[in-house]
Structure formats: structure tokens, C-alpha cells
């Protein structure tokens, strides 16, 4: 009798022995929800110009730069047309433009005049003239 009971116990627990084996299916990273699309007229590429000294400088319109306390940022338009905030550090003002010391690459597209309504993740459409300008570069 005792032996039978034992068998039941061991049979019951053998299933438990295998618990914890095997891996789990990895869920694929989810894509962020499709954001709204806004038409913005003034999208400009970051310009590289010959600086006063040796070497070149990067310029963005002063109107493109916004401030949050001591931080300075611009709205960058990515390849997919999505807006992202980019924090930059700036130097002198040159004829309505600001010299960018770090944070941007030449040719990147920025929103020419900062608009607080443009949030991160919004898709913007580029105006025709700018696209041509980029292509001609």
C-alpha cells in the first residue's frame, strides 16, 4: 500500500521536475503608434560655411533655436519626416544665423522657425523647394 502511495507522489512531482525548462517566445519590439502629420513650410538643411578662422562652421537660423532654461535645442526632421528634439551648443550669431558648436551635422534638416506646437514624434511634410535644394547639394 505504502509503495502505491509513493508512486502517486513521485508521479505527481515528476511533472514539477521539468518545470522551468524551455524558453519563452520573445515578443517583437512594438512600433510607436502612427503620429499626426503637419505641413511645415520652413525646413532647412544645416549649412556648413567657411568660418572666420581656419576650418568651417555649421549655421542654423537663430529662429530655429529654442531655449529651455540654459538648454538650447532645435527641432530636427529625420529621414522618415519625424520631428525630434536635438540639444545643441551654439557660438556667435552671424547675420541672423547661429554657429552650432556641437550636436548637429551638416545637411541635417531642421525646422527653420521653432514652433512649440511641433512635438516630438510628429511627422512633417517638407516643402518642395527645400527638397530640391537638398538634392542639388
Amino acid at each position, binding site marked *: 500500500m505504502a509503495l502505491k502511495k509513493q508512486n502517486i507522489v513521485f508521479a505527481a512531482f515528476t511533472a514539477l521536475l521539468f518545470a522551468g*525548462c524551455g524558453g519563452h517566445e520573445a515578443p517583437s519590439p512594438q512600433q510607436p503608434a502612427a503620429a499626426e502629420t503637419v505641413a511645415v513650410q520652413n525646413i532647412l538643411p544645416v549649412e556648413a560655411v567657411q568660418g572666420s578662422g581656419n576650418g568651417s562652421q555649421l549655421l542654423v537660423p537663430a529662429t530655429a533655436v529654442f531655449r529651455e*532654461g540654459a538648454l538650447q535645442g532645435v527641432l530636427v526632421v529625420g529621414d522618415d519626416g519625424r520631428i525630434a528634439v536635438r540639444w545643441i551648443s551654439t557660438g556667435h550669431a552671424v547675420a541672423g544665423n547661429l554657429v552650432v558648436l*556641437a550636436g548637429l551635422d551638416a545637411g541635417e534638416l531642421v525646422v527653420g522657425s521653432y514652433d512649440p506646437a511641433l512635438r516630438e514624434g510628429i511627422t512633417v511634410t517638407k516643402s518642395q523647394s527645400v527638397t530640391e535644394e537638398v538634392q542639388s547639394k
Partner: protein
Amino acid sequence: MNEGIAGKLAKQFINSKITPLLMVAALLVGVIATFMTPREEEPQIVVPMVDIYIPYPGAAPSEVAERVAKPFERSLTEIQGVDYVYSTSMPDFALVTVRYDVGASTEESMVKLWGTLMKNMDKMPAGVQMPLMKKVAIDDVPVLNLTFWGGKTDPYRLRQAAIDVADELKKIPDIGDVEIKGGLKRQVRILLDKSKLQRYNVSAPQIMQQIQSANSQITSGDFTSMNREVIVRTGKFLESAEDVGSVVVGVYGGSPVYVRDVATISDGPEEVNNYNFLTWGAAAPAGMPDGEFPAVTLTVAKRKGTDASVLAGKVIAKVNQLEEQKVVPHGITVTETRNYGETATEKVFTLLEHLSIAVVAVTIVVGFFLGWRGALVNFMSVPITFALTLLVYFLFDYSLNRVTLFALIFVTGIVVDDSIIIAENIHRHFAMKRQPKLQAAITAVSEVGNPTILATFTVIAAVLPMVFVSGLMGPYMSPMPIGASLAMIFSLLVALIATPWLSYRLLKTEEGGHDEYDIQKTSYYRVFNSVLSPLIDSSLKRWMAFGVVGLMLLGAIALVPLKAVEMKMLPFDNKNEFQVIIDMPEGTALEETGRVAQEISGYLRTVPEVESCQYYVGTNAPINFNGLVRHYYLRQADNMADVQVNLVDKAQRSDQSHDIAKRVRAGVQEIGRKYGANAKIVEIPPGPPVLSTLVAEIYGPTEKDRIELAGKVKQIFLETPGVVDVDWLVEDDQEVYDLVVDKKKAAFRGVSVQQIAQTLRMSVAGMDIGALHGQPDLEQVVIHVRLPKADRTSLGDLSNIFVQSQGMGSMTSRLRAGEMIPLSELVKVEKSVQDKSIYRKDLHDVVYVTADVAGVTESPVYAMLEMDKKIAALKLPDGHSVSPLYTSLPESEAKTAMKWDGEWQITFEVFRDLGTAFAVVLVIIYLLIVGWFQSFKTPLIMMIAIPLSLVGIIPGHWIHGAFFTATSMIGMIALAGIMVRNSVLLIDFIQIRRDEGEGLKQAIIESAAVRTRPIILTSGAVVIGSIVMLFDPIFQGLAISMIWGGVLSTILTLVVVPLVYYMAEKKNA
């Protein structure tokens, strides 16, 4: 009959009124101790580590290494107890890290180190400044992080709010260090205007002197008159930006020149020197806004020995109160981004729950054999055992953590044995009804008392030698053998005192007819008779049986070289966080680094399990124990960024953190590669932290040789599949402009080199020249002089910086003083490359190549073995080949050499020590049994059971797909004790039967039949008690060893041991 100690104890307590009181008291103190013992997740490892910063301004790394680091290292080795000495010689300073033996007293180590340092200060070269010595302790790791953020709140205001809160928090008792990460400080900035400086004939050092002398106030003494004393005070501190602006710095055209005339003065945030942003991830709590927000993190550490969860609770209550009192301004949200107190409490209570499950499961098993009354006896005695063990934990300042509690779960199946044996025997004696009940109980205890004591000590002998595991793993693992041994001793006492008392009252003498007990009618006997008889009778069958067992053993062992079961020190744990460490090439601007961190955190927040991401650029993320050992708190340069990733609680996700880390690695590194960054995923290691999982230390005669070999090794790392996060501790080339002063010209113009250096330093790096006084701010408001950022972007900007001639005062010039001389006239620019830092370990120059393993191989040992072949095949310029060393440093530095370090070093030490412990265990067990059986041969037969456990252990790991880890090894060692005990029970009975005149064969079959029940009962308890441990990633190995090893070894023991005994005793039969 002879009662022995056991019988005497039982007799004293079986009817005593004190016994139930003792039981209740033990339970009560156990419960109280459980709540009073500090709780934490991981055991506290005291690693006395001291960082010594020795500044040597202006010196190149090679000079720092030769003149400062080397002599100092040499003197350090004189100190007893120093384990490792590491040094890094950088431009301008040396960092020497001294690591003492694990467990050494921190205070004593500090005193010795200070003594040695002071003794050798006279040998240091001129120009070396006072060293700074910092103790690195586990209690520096913050237990609670509070992140301050708000939609449109800038870092400056966030920091102000955090400081106000920090000041209030400091008033809480038991709180440790409170720090603020990120944000911008308030500063009075004097932004020099180059053209105005020139126009008004004012130089930067002049401004510094004037402001410093204006910013003074002293008590001059007192006047006594009319029996009164009046205090006289002179001067007035600068109290506002206006005060600073009104300091006169010179005279021009007969009128004074004020600071405000030559500079812009601002009172507000300092220049941006860090970026710290919080973003909410895909698994954020509902209602959290999208996007990233400037953030400041307040970190709270605890005082040594206090309970993190209690402290965290108090801090959070205080912060809530401060939020209500509007100390935290409107619009700023305070979010908990780390709470180790909560995770510790959660872990401890989960483990206590598991412990209860184990106790209940074991009780059920016992119930099947002894009936519910017998089960109840055991069910009551186990909690008393654990209550007493918990009390000892409290008294000896152990904390409740995963290791101390697993020690209890691990012994659950073992501690019931003592009670089982006693209760079972009492049960048998009651059934026999030969004596009155009381007398029967005492006889029963006396009968099995002594073997029980021996069995207990056998198990203690098996686990206790593990205390001697050395190195970082020692303190991590030592609670295991200590806790288990304590529990064993208490279980013995409980079995001898409480169990008889309980059994006497709970166990019933069975009523009704009682059959004459006949062994030959039991089912056990029939089974063993049919199995063992043919094997005993036919030597061919016997040898075939041995052959089968031998093949099983070989097959099991073969799984290891076949890599079906891989060895690893410890598997990864399931944590709620990991970090991404981003290193950009040296010379990358802060914003560019920030951009990479921003993009990586933008990617990570789309991962479904990520609750929040926080990135820190230019300042380090709050450290954890791993970061502490790896010196991540020094990561404060423009080219470095850390991303702290918080996952949702492990209960709410199906993937373990290690799997998530593996999954995101490719995406993170792709972003990193785009910008030339090295982005590493850093998980919290399950055991003691090391520099990196894989570390290749490259030694060699010259720096060129070392870097060359390191480059090749790094290439091999990169090409080996499964080796990830490859990096080396060699900086990229960073461009340097050396401004060489034309000394002759400078002297002629009345300008000193020092003056030029100071002017440049103030202009470019800026200089703190004092502080505002009388401000309500809790942080000091520094007065800082510098050129505006726009005016220091290129060499061209340096040309119109002017220095003032000292004139005749300089003794080298006859020109008049005060003339402004452009720097461009006095210096010549030479472009060069920044010298690289020099790393040294234990007095050898070394270059480190580091990597992690993930994916193809999870265990570094296999990756190392694979790379060994490739490294040995390397062609070196001088023709010799490199064979990587594993355990010792190269004998000479004349040739390049390589040594493996990192996790391997700890793995090697742990398995070496556990192996030694195992050998000691075997010897002790042998001695114990020799003492008991008075035979040299019999103990060897009993110990056959030990290797048989491998037949279960190794395939068990294969079935579960688990690593054979350090905890598996612990399980194997503990199992040795249990299995030997089974053999002891078996052979003891054979000998008793033979003494009674039974034939050898009959005695063997009968004893196997009789002893099967207690053997299966005790082994079953061990197996069932271990099942809950299967679900912990780290202790899974221990559970697998105990379960599979226990099951198979028990079955094989019941067959193999009697057979071997038969063969050994055949001649004497």
C-alpha cells in the same frame, strides 16, 4: 538499556511543562527576529577598496607613471593584506586603487594605507600635490533614486528643488549620503569681453586678484569701554552679482574700471556641462506623457547596517509630505526610479513564502509514510528549527537576503530527517505495544538517538568546509554553509526535545489486531528479492549490472566535454534594470554624445518591457554595486554617457532581464556604430562584479608591443561569435594644441610663463575665484570667470587674448608695466596627440581588452578556449607565439604575454576552493564512518554512492538546459553527505542482521527491503524540498543537483551498494 544523551534528553523533556513553553518562545523570537533583521536582496560583500588620487599637474602619463605611480605601488606591497594594486596614470594625475583581502577591516586598512602614503610623500617629485584618499564601500551605492522632472522645467530649477528636498531628507535618521545627479548649479558667471579687456588695459588674472581681495571680511577685535565690549569687523563679503560687478579692477583714463565694464555678469545657471533626461517607455504606467524631459536625480544611500526598506519608506513619506508643503514647486514631479528597499522586501518575502511551500510539501511527503499525525509532528518541529536559525542570523548581524534564506530552503528536506527518524521510531514502538506508552517513546529515542547524531554531523561535515571559499565569492556564499549547519544543529535539538513531546501526545497506538511482522511478505522485499537475488547469484549478471551503471556514469560525464552541459560561475539573475554604457571616441563634444544617448534611449523606450529610460551625459548614472567595482562613478567626461533602463516588475513580464538585454543589444549597437560609439549593455552580475566578463590582460616590454598585441587580440574577440561588447582600455587619439611659450620673447616683454598659463586657463577652462556670501542657497554659489563659449571655439580665438606686462617688476624687462601684449606674439602652436593613460596591475604595465559573452556561448570559459587557439596562432614581429595564461602572471616582461582575467578569475578561485572543500568533506566523512564502524574498508563501499550522484546531476542539468554552476557544485557536495548517510543506514542494518546469524545474501536483501522506506522518505524530503528552488535563476543549479542527483543516486545506491558489499564480504561469509 543504555539511554545515551538522546534518551536522557528525551526523558527530561517528554513530560516537562517547560517543553511547550520553550517551543512557543522559540517560535515567537523567530517571528520577531524575522521582522527585525535588516532585509536586502544580495548579501553585503565588504570589499575594502581605496582610491587614491595623486595630482601632478602638467605631467605626462609616462612621467606620472614613472615618478608617482610606480614608487607608490612599490611601497604599497609592503602592507600586509593588500590583495591587488591597480594604477592608472593619466595626464596631470595618477589614480591608484588598492584592494585588500575580502573581509578585511576597512578602518584598519585605511590607517595602514595612510601611514604608508605619508611615509613616502618625501620621495615624491616636486609639484606633486596632496593626495586625496577615498574609501569605496558598498554603502555608497544608493538604495533609493528619486527623479525630479516636469514638462517644461529646466535643469537649473530642477536642481534647486532637489537641493531643497535633499536638505530636508538629511534630517531622517540612518540616512547615508544624499547626492544630486545632473542639473545645473547656480553660479555668478563673469563672461570676459576680450575687446573691452584690451581697451581698458585689464587682464584676467587682475580680475581674479581684485575680486578675491574685495570678497573678504574679518573680525578685527573689540573695544572695551563702560564695562561693555563692542566687536569691530572689517570688510564686506560680496553678496550679489551687482556687488561682483561693482568691484574696481583697474583705472583707465583717470576713471575706475569696474568688472561690469569688461565682462558680462550673470547670476543663474552655470554653463551646460551635463544632460540628464527621463523618458517613459512602452510599459510606462498609464497617464505618463510622451517625449523626454529634463531630469535631476536625487540619490539616497543608507547607513551601514540599516534596513533599506525601512529607510526607503521613511524617505518616500517625507517626500510626499514635502510635496504637500509645496517645497517641491508646482509642475515638478518626483518619481521613484530605484528602490532597492522594495525589491529586497519583495525578494525576502517571496523566499519566506517559498520556504513555507517547501515545508508544506515535505510535510505532505512525510504524511504519506507516517500518517497525518506523524506529518503534524514534523510540521511543528521544522518551523521551530527555522525560528531559532533566524534568531541566530539576527544576533550575528546577518541580514535576510537571498543567500541566507536559500540556505534554509536548501536544508528544509534535510532538517526534517532528524524528526522523521525519531517520530518514525516512536511510531514503530507504539505499534509494537511492548512497553507502556511513555517508556516506549523513551526507548525509541534512545535506540535511534546516537545514529541520528552521527548522521547530523555527517551532513554538517559535508556543508561546513564550504565556509573556506576565498575571494569575493567567499562572503557571498558563506551564509549558505553556516546557515545550513546552524539549522542542522537546531533540528537535532528539536528532534530530541520537542519531537518526543509532540509524538507522545499526537501519535496514537494503533488499535485492533496486529499481524505478526514478517519481512518476507512486504512488497519491498518482493521487489528487492527479484532484483538483487539474480545479481547476487550470478557473477556475470552482477558484472553486467556494474557495466551498465559504469556506462551510465561515463555517459553522464561525457555530456560535459560534449558541451551539452556547460560550466558557468553563476547564471544571470532576473533583475528589473540594466544599463547601457556609451563611450564615444575621446574628443567628442558633449552634445554629440548626448545625441547618441538620446537616440539609444529613444530606441529602448519602444521595447515593450521598458518602463522608463533615463540618460546621463557628461555625468554618471547613479551607480550600483557593479558600477562601484568598475569605477563607473568616474565616468564624468564629455564623451561618456550612461543610460539607465528600468523594466517593469518581473511579475508582469514573461522574459527574463537577461533575455531582454540580449534582444536589444543588436539595436543599441547599431545606433552606436552609426556614430562611432562603443555602446555596451551592462547587466547586474549575479555574483561579485568584475571589470568585465571576459578580460584579456596584455603584458609586454613596451607600450608599443602591448598595444600591438592587444589590437590583434581585440580583433580575435570581434571575430569570435558569441563574444560581444568588445572594447579595450586604450584611448583614441585626441588632438592636442601645445602652446609653446617663447621664453626669451616673453622675458623681454616682462611676461612670465605662469602668467600666460593662468590667463589661458581662466579664459578657456574658466576658474572659480570665490563664492557669494549671505545667500539662502544650500549649495554654495561660486563666482566663475571665463570667456563666453562663443569666444573659445578655435585657435583663432586665442590670438586676441592679451596678457599684461609686469614691466620692470618682472626683473627681465625694461619696458613699462601695464602694456597689453597679445598671446599670439608670445606662443607658438604645436599640434600633437594626447598621451594615452598607462594602466598597471600589481606592478606590471598592462593593457586590458574586455568583452562580454551572449548568444552563442553564455559561459566565458568556452569562448576563452575557442579564442586560445587563434591567439596561439598569432604571428608576432619577434617570432614568438603567445599562449594565454590562466592562473598566474607571466614570469617575465621581456616578451609579450597574455593572461585571462574577469569572471574566469573568480570562477577558477571558486571551483578550486569548492573542489578542495569537497576533498576535505570526503576525508571527514571517511573518518566519521571509520570511527563508527571500526573498519577501513566498509566506509569506502558506502562512499561509492557519491560518484553515482553524477549520473543524475549532469543529465539533470542537460534536461533543464541549465549551466553547471557554483551552486550546482554546492548541491553536489551536500548530496555527498546525504547519500553516505543512506549507505550508512543500509550497511548498519546488514551488519546487525548478520550478527543475529543471518546469511549474507538474506541479510542484504532484507536490509535493502527494510531500509528502503526511511531512505526513500529522507531522500524524497530532500527532493521535494528543493523543487521550489528550481524557479530561482541562481539557485536552480543547486536544486537540479539535489533533485536529480538525489533521485538517481538513491535508486542506484539501493542496488549497487549492497552488491559491492556482497562482493567484499563474500570471502568472510
